[in-house]
């Protein structure tokens, strides 16, 4: 069955970008927070929504997402003095902590990882024909994503749903940048075979 579902995924390739000035300004807040934790509230306000959404997407449980999100920020505060600036937005460090917290939770419970993706977002990311997304197509996409390795799925999620750049993804997952790119391209190739995906770097 040929499915001309995904015509262009170029929009997926643009990561959420922070300018050098923004990163530097953020770094100043971090330095201030190291001296006085009260300054951290600005960081909390700025990143709470993103981190919560990320954890919710990885757990599909609102209450658990609340707990893990709160735990993520507590851990960040506890280890703030050890944080080293590497030219990346602070969010990368928060995503790293959040990923560790989520993984720790699933390892403890000995359960399969969850990726709870919004249909709306999937539709935004994958262009469909005039008829739109049918249930069968959604099911097929689900099957393909289910068959991808979890590590690849993590990269896909961070890239397309969180909008992180490859450098940030590499930092979050503690892998090489080229490795992250390779895994993502392979996953996109798989999608392209199934969905006649027209994806350009």
């Amino acid at each position, binding site marked *: 069955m040929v499915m001309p579902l995904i015509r262009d995924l170029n929009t997926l390739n643009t990561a959420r970008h922070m300018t050098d000035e923004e990163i530097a300004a953020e770094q100043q807040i971090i330095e201030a927070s190291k001296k006085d*934790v009260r300054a951290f*509230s600005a960081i*909390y*306000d700025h990143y*709470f*929504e993103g981190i*919560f*959404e990320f954890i*919710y997407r990885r757990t*599909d449980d*609102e209450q658990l*997402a*609340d707990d893990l*999100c*709160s735990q993520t*920020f*507590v851990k960040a*505060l*506890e280890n703030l003095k050890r944080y080293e600036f590497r030219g990346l937005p602070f969010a990368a460090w928060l995503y790293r902590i959040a990923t560790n917290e989520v993984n720790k939770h699933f390892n403890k419970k000995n359960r*399969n*990882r*969850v*990726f*709870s*993706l*919004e*249909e*709306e*977002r*999937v539709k935004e990311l994958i262009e469909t024909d005039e008829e739109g997304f049918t249930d069968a197509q*959604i099911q097929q996409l*689900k099957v393909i*994503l*289910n068959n991808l*390795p*979890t*590590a690849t*799925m993590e990269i896909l999620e961070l890239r397309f749903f969180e909008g992180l750049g490859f450098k940030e993804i590499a930092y979050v997952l503690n892998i090489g940048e080229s490795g992250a790119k390779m895994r993502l391209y392979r996953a996109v190739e798989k999608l392209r075979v199934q969905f006649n995906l027209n994806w350009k770097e």
Partner: protein
Amino acid sequence: MGRHEIRLRRHRMTSRRIEGHKNYYDVMRKHQRGSRLKRLLKLVLLFLFFVLLLGIVYFTSRLMTNEEPATIENGQVSMVISDLESLAPQKGDLKVTRKTLTKGLTSRLKARESR
């Protein structure tokens, strides 16, 4: 890495709903409790370290005070005996001198210690 499960949600969570989970006060409270516990643990460890250090100092000083008088006494006695042995003309005389001298010396040393 193990297997995973893909779930598709009909709707995205709204910012307003996420905002409802925001609780900076709780985060700060947990952080403060955690740092208080850490500080307490540090204090306990420091206290234990000092107790250990004091114990070591006490036992070494005790060992040294126990060893010192014994060696001095024996040393003094054996020195005098060896001097006498070199001076003594006959074996019989030496036995008598050795006994009396050892007694005399030890009693003198005890008296000095008690003083």
